[in-house]
Structures are given as structure tokens and as C-alpha cells.
């Protein structure tokens, strides 16, 4: 237990120790930022689901990876939202309503995350974050994949309307109309979803994976508007999360600035991609990537259990789990980023072919 207490106290030096032990870790964080930024710009969320576990794979404690991520979310969303705003993809009114309870959700998550770090140290914090990650994102990833597969079988089919129809049965008054998204949503449903978005963002740094699907499947918001609005919402949630984690002393700005080094390069390409790439591809990438990251986290859990002396594992198995986790995470991130950039440039080339005919806009 002394070791655990020492880890808890040493949060100021833990990142220095990681960087001193292996300076290449800094490049790893920048690469994570680039992949996360590209994905985030492309699907409106998704940076965090890759960056949080990625930093944990590099040795950063769960709570500090989450706090770096949510702090980074603030500025990244600020720039991403600006870009989506230029395309008219942001419903600010919807974002503000969701934010009202998301702030409470974030505060609750900060308290819970801090509790695990203080009581169980680095491994306990990472275990809690990983378990939460696996539990929530496996459900979300599976649902998204199922829906994307359906759309691929039936060209032209939009997102599934099952949840949308279900939510219409719970249209408690008052209903609020959102002009940009062109939907009417119950205030009660809005506030409940807002809390869960905030709690998820505060716990694993991933709010968009409830926020974006909820907006698409429950509220009936078009995918591009959901992505843009999520970035707008993420800007304020990130600011609030950064402040709250800052109050507990968990934010190491080195991680944040390194993430920015890559993410604010990638985010522009991702955001332009939403304008050029087919919606089905956006949904397909999101779903597959979430599930691959879940697999990566599942493979990371035995190491934390070992550190907490909950299970016994021989050295060879532990190394295999660790390498497997990294390969799944970085491999899937690199492939997805490459695909997004490839589709974006390909779609642009197709648009230019139309431009030569005098049709400079509107070609998909």
C-alpha cells in the first residue's frame, strides 16, 4: 500500500519520469494527437477514445490521461467548431441545452476519478477508466456498426430510426425546436442525455460517443450537424473539465501541448473530410475504430489487475497483453487516419474533375 500512496503523491513528477525514461514517448503523444485530431474533425468526436488509452499505453496514469485529454478537448474543439461553423454545421442552441447538465456530469466524474487515483494509485485509476471504457464503448461501437452495415446493404438508407421512434414516445413537454438541426426534442430527454455526456467526458475523456449518437439516433439530427454541434459542446465541456481537473492538480500541460502538436494539424483535414466523404464511410470508420479500441483496452486490463495483485500472470503473458494492446490501438488509429486522408483527397480529386466541366461545387 505504501507504493500506491507514493504514486498518488507523485503526480507532479510522473510525466517527467516517463519522458526521461524514453524521450520517444513525446513523439508517441504527438502521433496520438494527430490521429485523434483527424478522427475528431471527421466524426465530431473520437479523438479521446484513441488518445486516452494511447497515453495510458505509454505509461500515463488513467486519471492524468483523462485530464490531459479533456483539457486538450477545450482548445481542439474551439478550433474544430470554428471550422464546422464555417460550413454551417453547428446548432449552438442545442449545444447550450446539453451543456446545462453536462457540467454536473463532469464534476461528478472528476470526483469519482480522483477517488480511485487517491485510493488505488496509478493502476487502480487506469483499471477504473479502462473498465468504464470497455463497458460503454463496446455497446456504442456495436450499435453503430450494426447500423452502418444496414446502410451498406441498403444504399441510401439513413441512420436507424428505431431509437428515434422510441424517443418520440417519451416526448415529455416542453419540446424545444432546434432550427439548424431542424428537430424538436423534449427538454427532459435533453437534460438526461446532457448529464451522461458530461459524465462520460469526465470519466474517459469521451463525451462525443454518447453525444453524437444520441443526437443522431435519439434526436434525429443530421450526422454532420451532430458532429459540428458536439465540437461546439466539447469546447465548453473541455473548459469546465480542465478547470475541475486543474483544481485537483491532475493536468500536466506537457501532455496537452504535445497532443495539440498533432491534433490541430489533423483536425482540419478531418473536418474537410466530412464535407467531401460519404456519410456511410464516416459511420463505418467510427464503429470499427471504437470496437478495435475496446479490444485494445480489454488487452490492457490484465496488466492493471496484476499490478493491483488481483491476478497472477507470468512475465511472457503480461508482455504479450501489453504489446497486443498497443498494436490494436496504434494500428487501428493509423489505418483509420490513413483512410480518412485517402478518402478526403480522393473526393477532392473527383470534385476537381467536375470543376473542369464548370461545376465547381456540389459534387460528392
Amino acid at each position, binding site marked *: 500500500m505504501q507504493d500506491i500512496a507514493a504514486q498518488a503523491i507523485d*503526480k*507532479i513528477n510522473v510525466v*517527467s519520469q516517463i519522458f526521461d525514461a524514453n524521450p520517444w514517448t513525446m513523439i508517441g503523444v504527438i502521433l496520438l494527437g494527430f490521429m485523434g485530431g483527424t478522427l475528431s474533425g471527421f466524426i465530431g468526436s473520437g479523438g479521446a477514445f484513441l488518445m486516452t488509452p494511447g497515453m495510458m499505453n505509454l505509461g500515463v496514469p488513467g486519471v492524468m490521461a483523462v485530464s490531459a485529454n479533456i*483539457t*486538450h478537448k*477545450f*482548445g*481542439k474543439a*474551439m*478550433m474544430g467548431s*470554428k471550422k464546422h461553423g464555417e460550413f*454551417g454545421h453547428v446548432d449552438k442552441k442545442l449545444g447550450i441545452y446539453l451543456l446545462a447538465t453536462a457540467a454536473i456530469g463532469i464534476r461528478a466524474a472528476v470526483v469519482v476519478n480522483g477517488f480511485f487515483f487517491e485510493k488505488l494509485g496509478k493502476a487502480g485509476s487506469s483499471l477504473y477508466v479502462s473498465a468504464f471504457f470497455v463497458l460503454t464503448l463496446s455497446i456504442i461501437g456495436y450499435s453503430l456498426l450494426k447500423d452502418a452495415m444496414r446502410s451498406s446493404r441498403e*444504399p*441510401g438508407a439513413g441512420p436507424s430510426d428505431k431509437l428515434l421512434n422510441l424517443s418520440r414516445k417519451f416526448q415529455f413537454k416542453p419540446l424545444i425546436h432546434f432550427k439548424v438541426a431542424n428537430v424538436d426534442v423534449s427538454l427532459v430527454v435533453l437534460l438526461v442525455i446532457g448529464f451522461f455526456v458530461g459524465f462520460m467526458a469526465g470519466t474517459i475523456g469521451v463525451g462525443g460517443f454518447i453525444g453524437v449518437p444520441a443526437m443522431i439516433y435519439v434526436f434525429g439530427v443530421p450526422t454532420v450537424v451532430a458532429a459540428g454541434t458536439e465540437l461546439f459542446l466539447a469546447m465548453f465541456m473541455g*473548459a469546465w473539465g*480542465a*478547470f*475541475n481537473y*486543474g*483544481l*485537483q*492538480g*491532475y*493536468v*500536466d*500541460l*506537457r501532455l*496537452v*501541448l504535445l497532443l*495539440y*502538436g498533432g491534433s*490541430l*494539424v489533423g483536425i*482540419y*483535414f478531418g473536418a*474537410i473530410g466530412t464535407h467531401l466523404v*460519404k456519410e456511410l464511410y464516416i459511420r463505418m470508420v467510427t464503429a470499427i475504430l471504437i470496437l478495435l479500441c475496446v479490444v485494445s483496452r480489454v488487452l490492457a486490463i490484465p496488466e492493471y489487475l496484476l499490478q493491483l495483485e488481483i491476478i497472477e500472470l507470468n512475465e511472457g503473458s503480461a508482455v504479450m497483453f501489453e504489446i497486443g494492446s498497443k498494436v490494436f490501438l496504434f494500428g487501428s488509429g493509423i489505418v483509420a487516419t490513413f483512410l480518412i486522408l485517402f478518402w*478526403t*483527397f480522393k473526393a*477532392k480529386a*473527383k*470534385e476537381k*474533375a*467536375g470543376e*473542369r*466541366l*464548370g*461545376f*465547381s*461545387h*456540389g*459534387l*460528392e
Partner: protein
Amino acid sequence: MKKIILIDGKWDMNSPALQYTLKASKGTDTEIAGIFLAADSSKETIENARNVLKAARQAFDSEGVGFSSYVVAQDPETFMKKLNDLMPASLVLIGDAKFTDEMKKGGVSIEALKEKFTCPVTTAEAIAAAHKEKKPAKGINWGKFIIYAIGSALMYGVFFPEIDMLNKKIFMTGTVLGGLAIMAVVAVHAWTWGNTTNILPKLFKLEK
């Protein structure tokens, strides 16, 4: 020679689709292959469609644009066969034409056509909407870029190496001042670095 396949159910020469097609074809060595998507295959409908297409031919001829036309009923097999026969094309433009449920069930929809053909497939609405949204190209403001780039260099070259020390003094002290300082640094850095990297899509010609 380029070819535009125009699919329309009315062939109104004043419609956006026909106007765009005319504008794009004039003086550009482009021929038009027109498909009149008829609601049914009755004799009367086909006759009417042919008359409308005659008027369209005259309009294209007067502008010196090559024009061939076909009347096709809303039958997925016939429609796809005709479209395949007309390929390769430089563009497929869908004007005032709605595909029936039978066509959609048979795999004929705008999305399916986009998937099937390598050339661009678009609608008159998409082109009109994009033209409406079109903003004047901003280009690259090199003066602003240099200022932001210098700011970014200072952040990464001067500020970043000092963070370890500043963490102990301010950022990781767990105080309100620490929390506010973090938010201020993040906002300034994201704005500075974000506006520096903003140039990249323009350099890669993804944006004008």
C-alpha cells in the same frame, strides 16, 4: 470529347439542371446525353416526352452543343441498361427527377449511382445549394500566418521546456489560480497553433 448524362423528368429549359448543363457544355467540347425519365410507358407519355426533348435539342443546337436523347420509363433494369450503354461519361447530373419506390427497390437511387459509377454523380439541388453557400476564396494571409507561426515557435521553443518548473509553481498546485492558468494557456496555445496549422489544407489545395 466530354460527356454529361442529364437525367430529368420534365426537361424545362429554365430549370437549374438544364441551365447548368448548358453553361458547362458551351464551348467546352462537351456533348449531352439526355434521359427523359418518364412516369410510365404509355404511348401518350412517350409521345409527350419526345416532343419536349425536341424543343430541348433545338435549344442545345442553337448554342452549338451536341445532344442525343432517350426516353426511359421508371423501370430499374431498362434504366440501368441505358445508363451503362451511355457510359463512359464525365458527369451524371440528376435534375427534376424522382426515382419511384420500384426503382429504389431495384437498386436505383442517387446513392447507388454514386457507388456504381466512377464519374461524379450529383443533383441539381446539390449544385444550387453549394453555389448559394459559396463564399469568396480567402486565400492565404501570409502576414497573419507569420505572426501565428512566431507565437507557436515561442510556445514550443520557450514555454514548453519550462512547464516542468511551472507545474510545481502554478499549474499542478490544485488551486483556483492553477485551474485558471491552465485554461488561459490552453486557449492561447490552441488559438495560436491552430491558426498556424490552418494554412495546411490550403497548401494541400483542399481549400481555396
